């Protein structure tokens, strides 16, 4: 037999004090001591700080508008186009809702397949999950939008497939794969004792999953599910590249109609960022509070 390699801590005694770590350990201890003494650095921002910042911004904007002289100011232009941009944002929301719905249904099925006892089902669903989970969203979007036909013929009638519905499918794929993992993770996070006790009460596997395991998973899945919704909602402008008439496309169209004045960039894109933020941030906060509420109590 081959002679074993000497392994520190396995077949030789492990030196407990590694001298190389001592200086850095001393520094860490020193820093911790100082921190305890002086307290840590904190920003300690108050609401009025934000107010002051906003005021400053408004003053600058006023100055900029005044400097423009007779030309219409960029913010005034934005104001004229606000409904047009918001209308585009409406499509973003619609796409995000539908893609989430589709992705949730498909992801739930795929996730349950991942915990199947049948190896082929388990393996195939795992492959699908991993494939879509590790592909760039944009590439998936391109693939779906370019591969799907723009219309289908059933009998004599022709059904057009608008761009945005293809975007829904394109976005639902990565959502499906990620939610599949959420479902699988939630199922395996249920303690094995739950499986054992329901098995020993003669529940079938199907009954165990639907009556015992999934009801306990449900709460655990809501926060990650909302998290993925936020990510999806923020990703929907990607489809503007494919010409879907959503908020970013509308912004470009509006700016083009105003002769692409460079001073329009800041107001228009700030407005875009703002509406996305105002929509997504409350959901994110809500998710955090739900996470706290549903935290596993042991």
């Amino acid at each position: 037999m081959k002679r074993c390699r000497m392994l520190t801590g396995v077949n030789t005694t492990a030196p407990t004090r590694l001298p190389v770590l001592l200086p850095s350990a001393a520094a860490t201890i020193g820093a911790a001591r100082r921190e305890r003494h002086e307290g840590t650095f904190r920003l300690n921002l108050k609401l009025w700080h934000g107010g002051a910042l906003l005021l400053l911004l408004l003053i600058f904007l006023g100055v900029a508008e005044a400097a423009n002289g007779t030309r219409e100011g960029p913010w005034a232009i934005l104001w004229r186009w606000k409904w047009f941009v918001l209308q585009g944002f409406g499509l973003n929301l619609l796409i995000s809702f539908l893609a989430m719905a589709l992705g949730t249904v498909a992801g739930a099925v795929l996730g349950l397949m991942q915990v199947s006892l049948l190896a082929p089902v388990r393996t195939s669903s795992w492959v699908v999950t991993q494939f879509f989970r590790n592909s760039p969203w944009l590439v998936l979007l391109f693939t779906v939008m370019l591969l799907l036909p723009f219309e289908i013929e059933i009998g004599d009638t022709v059904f057009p497939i608008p761009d945005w519905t293809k975007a829904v499918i394109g976005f639902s794929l990565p959502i499906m794969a990620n939610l599949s993992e959420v479902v699988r993770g939630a199922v395996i996070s249920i303690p094995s004792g739950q499986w054992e006790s329901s098995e020993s009460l003669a529940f079938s596997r199907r009954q165990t999953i639907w009556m015992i395991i999934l009801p306990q998973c449900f709460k655990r899945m809501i926060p990650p599910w909302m998290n993925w919704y936020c990510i999806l909602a923020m990703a929907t402008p990607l489809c503007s590249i494919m010409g879907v008439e959503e908020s970013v496309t509308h912004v470009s169209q509006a700016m083009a109609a105003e002769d692409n004045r460079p001073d329009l960039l800041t107001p228009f894109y700030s407005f875009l960022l703002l509406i996305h933020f105002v929509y997504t941030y409350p959901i994110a906060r809500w998710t955090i509070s739900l996470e706290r509420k549903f935290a596993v109590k042991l």
Partner: protein
Amino acid sequence: MAWDESQPMVSINDVHKSFGELKVLNGVSFDVMKREVICIIGPSGSGKSTLIRCVNALNTIDKGSITVQGQEVHDPKLDKLELRKKVGMVFQQYNLFPHKTALENVMMAPTHVLKQDKAEVEERAYKLIKKVRLDGKERSYPGELSGGQQQRVAIARSLAMNPDVMLFDEVTAALDPETVKEVLVTIQELAEDGMTCMLVTHEMGFARELADHIYFTDRGIIVEHGPPVTFFTDAKDPRTKEFLSQIL
């Protein structure tokens, strides 16, 4: 082949079981008759829990045979669900369903597995909860109950299936000394009612008082066995003696 009460309720014959390299059971044999209460004791890792889990097919065995009412458990064609309707099991960690109330925990298996009438099951569940002295706690969730109370609900939950054998896997090991007693009293009443019980336990006083027969296992074999009187006072094997001297 019909089974009748003169034959063993549970018969364990030369059972071998290993987890990979580790041999857990190394030829264990004994019989349990109807209405008999047996206790399996022994040091940690001696295969007690594995053995009892093999009886309701939660674990498979590598060699040998286990029969419950004459039915082979080790048979790959066995309908495990049918077997488990006859064999109740209570775990160390209670394993109640946390999303259901105590009453629902007791009712779930009879209504969904045995498809019994819900009103009838409910009536029986109330009685069972009363029997384990938890009346008034029907609407409580497991999280609101103490360990001892949860364990008694778990016992009621198993009893709701009207099992012929009850398996208890170190059911008091996770409880504090105060609450151990309330669970033991429940098991005692059950035994006095004539339930066939197999217990894995560390409660020597309880085993001595309640058991009809005690089996001492070590390293996957039964080292010594006998009725409590002779077992505790007149142990022959040095390993049993050593174990008992540490515990008693």
